[in-house]
């Protein structure tokens, strides 16, 4: 008898919970892809959820390639990408996906603090290319400290890698025989550069800090730093749009979230995270 009592109490409780749930449907959206775009989207998701408590947005990384693949395979409602889609990807997305630029960003060429303070504060694209091709292997050759260069490459799926390799090596999928490590997310790369005394890597502009310094790029004799100002005026050579992908027939909630990203509040978050707003 005791068991029956407990069961009936549980049944009553379940019925009660179901009946007091609001009538409007909860909706959970999933955003996936670039870890460069992620800080903006996750912060915006928190703010958006506060304004519309019945819409929850989960955000996960993986890289631009993963975000685009997730759209193609319908495993996420919102894709994040820090590069343009390739022609093959575009062919699969053309009909039914909107590609919206929510911010602009620079891919900074970063070095460890010791290298920066050792004298390497600016390099030309050709010099960076020679490092990644394995033709320059010691910082001394570039006027820096006498230390071997730890060149960090990124996973092929990463948008930052695409943009960097296209600008520096001429092709998004170019080989980098001078690289001695492959890293994944911005977070992982930032940690490796910070821990090393002799590293060079590629990171979104928003991920620089005291141990991870962005160097200027020499363009026709002028050193151009990866600042928001230089991205805005188009002088910094390795910049890109940060994209949101969303299906044309997406739910009103997903649409509203994209509108929120483009609104004054959303663009404020873009600025706060360290990217250049588009509006």
């Amino acid at each position, binding site marked *: 008898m005791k068991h029956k009592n407990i069961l009936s109490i549980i049944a009553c409780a379940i019925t009660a919970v179901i009946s007091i749930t609001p009538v409007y449907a909860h909706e959970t959206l999933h955003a996936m892809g670039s870890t460069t775009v992620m800080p903006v989207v996750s912060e915006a998701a928190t703010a958006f959820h506060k304004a519309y408590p019945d819409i929850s947005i989960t955000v996960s990384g*993986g890289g631009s390639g993963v975000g685009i*693949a997730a759209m193609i395979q319908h495993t996420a409602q919102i894709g994040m990408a820090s590069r343009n889609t390739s022609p093959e990807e575009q062919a699969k997305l053309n009909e039914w996906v909107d590609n919206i630029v929510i911010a602009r960003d620079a891919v900074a060429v970063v070095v460890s603090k010791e290298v920066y303070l050792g004298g390497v504060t600016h390099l030309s694209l050709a010099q960076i290319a020679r490092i990644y091709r394995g033709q320059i292997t010691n910082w001394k050759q570039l006027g820096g400290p006498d230390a*071997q260069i*730890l060149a960090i490459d990124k996973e*092929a799926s990463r948008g930052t890698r695409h943009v960097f390799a296209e600008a520096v090596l001429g092709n998004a*999928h170019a080989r980098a025989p001078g690289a*001695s*490590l*492959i890293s994944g997310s911005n977070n992982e790369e930032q940690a490796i550069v910070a821990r090393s005394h002799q*590293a060079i890597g590629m990171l979104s502009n928003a991920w620089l800090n005291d141990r991870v310094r962005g160097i200027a790029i020499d363009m026709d004799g002028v050193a151009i730093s990866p600042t928001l100002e230089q991205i805005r005026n188009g002088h910094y050579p390795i910049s890109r749009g940060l994209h949101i992908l969303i299906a044309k027939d997406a739910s009103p909630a997903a649409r509203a979230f994209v509108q929120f990203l483009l609104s004054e509040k959303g663009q404020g978050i873009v600025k706060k995270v360290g990217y250049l707003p588009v509006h």
Partner: protein
Amino acid sequence: MILLKPGLYLITSFIALLVLAVPFFLVQASAPFWASAGIMVLTGTEWFPYEMLFGMLPAIIGSTWAILIALFIAIPCGVATAIVTTELVSSSLASATRMGMEVLAAIPSIVYGLIGLWLLLPLLQASFDLLSGHSLLAAGLILALMILPLITLMSMDALKLVSSTQREAGMSLGLSWEALLFRVLLPQAWPAIRGGILLAMGRALGETMAVMLVVGSLDRMPEPIMNVLQPAQTLTSRIGREIGEAAFGSIHFSALMACGLLLALIGLSISLFAHTRVVKA
């Protein structure tokens, strides 16, 4: 109760089906890759998916080295710990060891990866004067730490289960402790210890996350081939790094499934090897 036996049979046949289905899936998913790239990719040394180059050898060698290092460290340490705790020290110390090992076994692999990233890599970098510390040695050491509890716990159980009549017979013959250990205890316990080692090896073979963080993920042949101090790639870390963007149904995806199939085959062959060796001995 009348349904007990049929129920048990049902569950067992379901498991048997799964055991057959997983390898079948791996073979089926990797078939397009084997058909287009051929078996010679096994000896290829260049892995550039965007150029349709799928050389498997660097990752095969990387996986092999990582596992050998892990087993080379974890087997002697684990068995030695088991001998000391079950045969030499008090039972309360033994249960404390057991509890410690169970805690170690329950820690998620990402935590081991982070321990490796923050503690092991700087240590290796400083002691071997390396560029970053990312290396097969780091992967092997982390794996050794991860499989140590499994080997220790299985060995402790195995030694405990050696029957006391055997033990007493040995002692009454006046055997020294060393002779008792090597002639009675270890031979009796060996099949179960071997089981533990095989399970541990399975875990080491399949471990992705922790290895991915410390191995460097660089798809290049170690030079020379026994150099375990360079960044390298294992089959699992390659799958972990690349599966997200490999479109389902593409050759790249199929190639990663082929890496999975290779891991399964390596596991199978080591396990068969262990079986035949033990039966002969």
